[in-house]
């Protein structure tokens, strides 16, 4: 898998420090964005990117972590979205509870998949695909529950501590906040028993078994965790766009999520966020792509597989390293230091 894993405990200490500093800078920048560019639409897109990155990070745990290719994450995304929508509109459940419930329900649904985690490689992928299609059929056909193809309308805005988050800025902080939380949680498992075990399974499941690791249990745990965060993202999505249709949760959505992880760099957590930014943000920036969107992404997917597995994360890491060495060389050659040397 990807050689250049950006934020892993295997990178040299100096690199890890830099990544941590960059992370804090990015977080600070994200907090400040609404003050610089308060345009509602921009904030809306950024919120969607944050939401997408949550699902992508879940898949990153599955694929880049434990090595399980799932092309059915959209199912849990959808389950979370509809659960949250139903709870808030039909049962008057307060938003924070609905958010958590969305994640929990998605996680429970993923328990149905636990027998599937025995499978490996493409077989697992196809099984997740089958599951995802089943969920899509349920969403589309059970109109009494989901509104089917007519859609689910009238989803309220998120409500926190009694305040309706009417302003795009507050919705933005909510989405980015949850995304940041998910990122921090996933980043924490590096360098721990759980993180090591997950990586071991990906690199050599047989050797992991021979060392006594409960491989299927660990793989299932990853599935449930990924489903939970996908459910959270689904809830955020539902209350952000406030309208749900089955077409938002097809196989193609699952593929989009895969594309985010691959473009960003399999094995890299920040890569998942970069990938989400590209997949969600690029079509907005380049309106002309529109129809050609999937074509471009398909092409990028293939190109990444053929040429640069590490994806954008590896690219940025390489650029960063190059930049640092360039900086050092320039600093040595600067006129002031030559003058000092001359004295």
């Amino acid at each position, binding site marked *: 898998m990807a050689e250049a894993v950006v934020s892993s405990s295997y990178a040299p200490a100096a690199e890890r420090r830099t990544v941590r500093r960059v992370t804090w800078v990015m977080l600070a920048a994200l907090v400040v964005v609404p003050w610089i560019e308060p345009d509602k639409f921009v904030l809306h897109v950024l919120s969607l990117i944050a939401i997408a990155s949550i699902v992508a990070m879940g898949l990153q745990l599955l694929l880049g972590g434990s090595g399980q290719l799932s092309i059915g994450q959209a199912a849990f995304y959808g389950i979370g979205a509809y659960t949250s929508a139903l709870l808030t509109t039909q049962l008057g459940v307060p938003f924070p509870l609905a958010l958590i419930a969305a994640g929990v329900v998605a996680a429970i649904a993923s328990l149905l998949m636990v027998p599937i985690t025995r499978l490996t490689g*493409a077989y697992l992928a196809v099984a997740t695909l*089958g599951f995802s299609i089943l969920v899509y059929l349920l969403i589309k*056909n059970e109109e009494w529950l989901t509104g089917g193809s007519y859609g689910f309308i009238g989803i309220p805005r998120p409500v926190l501590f009694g305040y309706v988050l009417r302003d795009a800025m507050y919705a933005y902080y909510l989405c980015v906040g949850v995304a940041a939380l998910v990122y921090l949680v996933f980043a924490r498992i590096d360098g721990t028993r759980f993180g090591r075990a997950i990586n071991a399974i990906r690199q050599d499941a047989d050797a992991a078994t021979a060392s006594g690791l409960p491989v299927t249990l660990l793989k299932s745990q990853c599935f449930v965790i990924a489903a939970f965060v996908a459910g959270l993202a689904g809830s955020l999505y539902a209350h952000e766009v406030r309208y749900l249709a089955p077409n938002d949760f097809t196989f193609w959505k699952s593929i989009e999520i895969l594309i985010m992880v691959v473009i960003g760099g399999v094995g890299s957590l920040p890569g998942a966020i970069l990938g989400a930014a590209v997949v969600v943000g690029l079509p907005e920036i380049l309106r002309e792509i529109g129809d050609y969107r999937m074509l471009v992404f398909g092409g990028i*997917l*293939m190109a990444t597989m053929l040429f640069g597995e590490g994806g954008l994360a590896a690219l940025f890491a390489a650029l960063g390293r190059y930049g640092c060495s360039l900086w050092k060389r320039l600093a040595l050659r600067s006129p002031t230091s030559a003058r000092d040397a001359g004295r």
Partner: protein
Amino acid sequence: MAGIGFAQLIDLLVGGLAIGCVYSLVALGFAMIMRATSIIHFAQGEVMMLGCMCGLTSLWLLPTLPLPLVLAVGMVSSGLIAVGMELAVYRTLRRRRVPIMNVITATVGMSILCINASRIIWGSEPLRFPELFATDAYVFAGVRISPQLFWIMVMGLAIMAALQLFLKHTRTGIAMQAVAQDPETAQLMGANLTRMMAYTFAISGMMAGAAGVMLGSMFFAFFEMGFITGVKGFIAATLGGLGSIAGAMLGGILFGLIETFSTVFLSSAYKDGIGMILLIAILLVLPSGLVGLWQKRS
């Protein structure tokens, strides 16, 4: 089961067999590629779709083209497309010995490219095939059969029989089998691995192309038709036993029948769901498929 008349039973049977032949052809493609490369070719459904589109285009250009030639056009174009995929992408990935997950992801990418290329070229509206078959039902021993379904069955079985003959009785076919079973030894015996791999993709492409033209003429052609049929072809191949040619043929027919007869009990909205449940069940319970079960018994 009250209310199923004999005529309806025959309809279901013939319909199931016909669609089963289509699934078998797609499944064969999966099986052959799986045997030779150990990957699941996610773009196989798209190869089928492109064959269908090319066949349809040839009918637009030459409206009097007889059915066998349309089929041939579909098969040849699909075969070429599949070989193109192999030469342009898959071979490079194999040579680089990339992890299998990457190859699978690449086939997914290929699938996306094909679907969207098709949408751009042929549009997103479903396209009807012109009438290729007689409309009056054939009557065999008092039983009425739709000519379209009849001929699809016949052609499907003929193509599969031709494939079996090719694999068992021609030098190239036998060489392909050898390469699939043991590449190193086959190479020592003089088989050209690259060419055999190309042939494998070509033939599985041709199977898919035939399936595409048949399916298109049964329903209609559109850019996403390869997706769900591709998944079903995979289900059929898994049911029969992935990697087994005979299993793919058997699995396809069987799955076609199961799916068609299930519409008696279930609403058609969930028809695709049958396949998904069957898929997961097979993967969990009987991963080596029916062929595996047969082998264990003997």
